[in-house]
């Protein structure tokens, strides 16, 4: 009974979607959070320019990113030796890149909204640069969590990258969005509706969670 449920394609596709987009978001957080905190805390000459770049990249069309990544990951592409096309890792990398500007931009805003005196205060109390950064991070943790949640939402709902570098392969790279897109073409509307409901449930649940968090922080 349980085994059958675990073998159910809908369950497997849902788990795969959560896993791929979750990993992508966490992976992206590894570089995006430090980058966001750094840009947010420091004042340097190209700061507005850097912020502008990340803001512009927020609107990156997923088909464009998908095509670029396909050309890179393709056997004859620059990164062809990695044999990443088609694979779930390729989707993870793609979605991690896709959400980078979201985490960076939102983290910058969160960090900038922290009272700058905190840094000075921490430093007068003998904190090192890293310790001061951590103090800022603690103050802006609400915004940072929001950034990560919003990124996950974007990742799990995107189609372009997953289709271009994953290929919607049954039992391997099929995620919710690609399955819905291709099963509709196949005329399997009811199956698609089931998957759509799951996708919507995930996205809405996360949006509601985000709103609740936002209210608590304010």
């Amino acid at each position, binding site marked *: 009974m349980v085994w059958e449920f675990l073998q159910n394609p809908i369950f497997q596709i849902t788990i795969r979607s959560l*896993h*791929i987009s*979750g*990993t992508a978001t*966490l*992976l992206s*957080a*590894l570089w995006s959070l430090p980058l966001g905190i750094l840009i947010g805390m420091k004042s340097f000459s190209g700061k507005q320019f850097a912020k502008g770049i990340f803001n512009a990249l927020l609107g990156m069309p997923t088909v464009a990113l998908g095509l670029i990544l396909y050309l890179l990951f*393709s*056997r*004859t*592409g620059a990164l*062809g030796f990695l*044999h990443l*096309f*088609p*694979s*779930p*890792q390729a989707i*993870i990398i793609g979605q991690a890149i896709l959400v980078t500007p979201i985490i960076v931009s939102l983290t910058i805003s969160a960090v900038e909204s922290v009272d700058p005196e905190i840094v000075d205060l921490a430093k007068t109390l003998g904190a090192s640069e890293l*310790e001061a950064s*951590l*103090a800022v*991070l*603690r103050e802006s*943790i609400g915004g940072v969590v929001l950034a990560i949640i919003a990124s996950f939402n974007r990742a799990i709902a995107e189609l372009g990258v997953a289709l271009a570098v994953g*290929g*919607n*392969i*049954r039992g*391997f790279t099929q995620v919710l969005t690609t399955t819905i897109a*291709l099963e*509709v*073409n*196949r*005329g399997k*509307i009811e199956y698609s509706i089931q998957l759509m409901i799951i996708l919507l449930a995930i996205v809405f649940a996360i949006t509601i969670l985000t709103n609740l968090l936002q209210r608590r922080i304010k």
Partner: protein
Amino acid sequence: MQRNIVIWITALILVAVVSVAGTVYYVGGGPKKKLVVSTTTSLYDTELLDTIEDQFEAKYSIDLYFISVGTGLAIKHAERGDADMILVHAPSKELSFLEGGYGVCRKIIAYNFFAIVGPEADPANIKDLSPTQALSNIVETGRNEDAKWVSRGDDSGTHTKEKGLWTTAGFNWTTLRNEEWYVEAGAGMGKTLQVSDNLDAYTLADMGTYLKYYKDGIISLEALVTEGEELLNVYSAIAGNQTRHSGINFDGAITFIKFLTSEEGQEIIANFGKDMYGQSLFYPAVDLLKHNTVPTMVQWIKNYAFFNGYECPPEYQDDHPELYT
């Protein structure tokens, strides 16, 4: 408090690392070899490939990965080394693919017919006409704004066939596509049928996909012109060329091609859809060609899908003559 944050960050890094490691493990750790097959949408949309996959994987230690993209992109995938083999249906393109040195060991696996399908009202009066006459009528009616034509518009096998049919009927496709009544869907077969159905338009469809969609009640278009040598549709399997892309799973591709052309594989093709649709969606081609069981049919296939009298010219047989005996 700051220690808390350090713990959180460490936890975050740990989770990320474990997730990535987990992905690498579950993707790379499997004992089965992968075989990436880029395929025309018609074989995929009808679910024939799902049936084949189940039976093949039960027998061999190879994981089949189908990417459904249409003949144009399938060939591109193989040219770039992204697919180990392809399943396609556009002989003219297959020939240039072979000649370009990208593929070897072509085998014709199945055939069926294209159909010109359209609304039941049939404003262009094409029912049971010859394909070329039917197309002339559609152009005329279209220009009078009483009919529409939906084209795949995606460089697929069906699209290639459509362009060929326009030429046979005496029209220039490049000018037709700019006319009002000519709609380019830029989509796979299933989607294109759905678009035509919504627009009450005519379109060219492979019989397999059409029948499935019609019998499943997804579309109500009628198959109006279904006969004639011009409408023949031939499916082939071609392995990638390992001297060009050394990383491909060539042995796997040959194993799969042998399975498709074996009695067992041909049986799956012959029986697919019989119980659901009352008739086969695809006809097996191997026995027919080998024993010349229906001479007219064999002649049609040879006229349309053979190159210089060969299913696969000897220079592209790549030390696998056993496929052709």
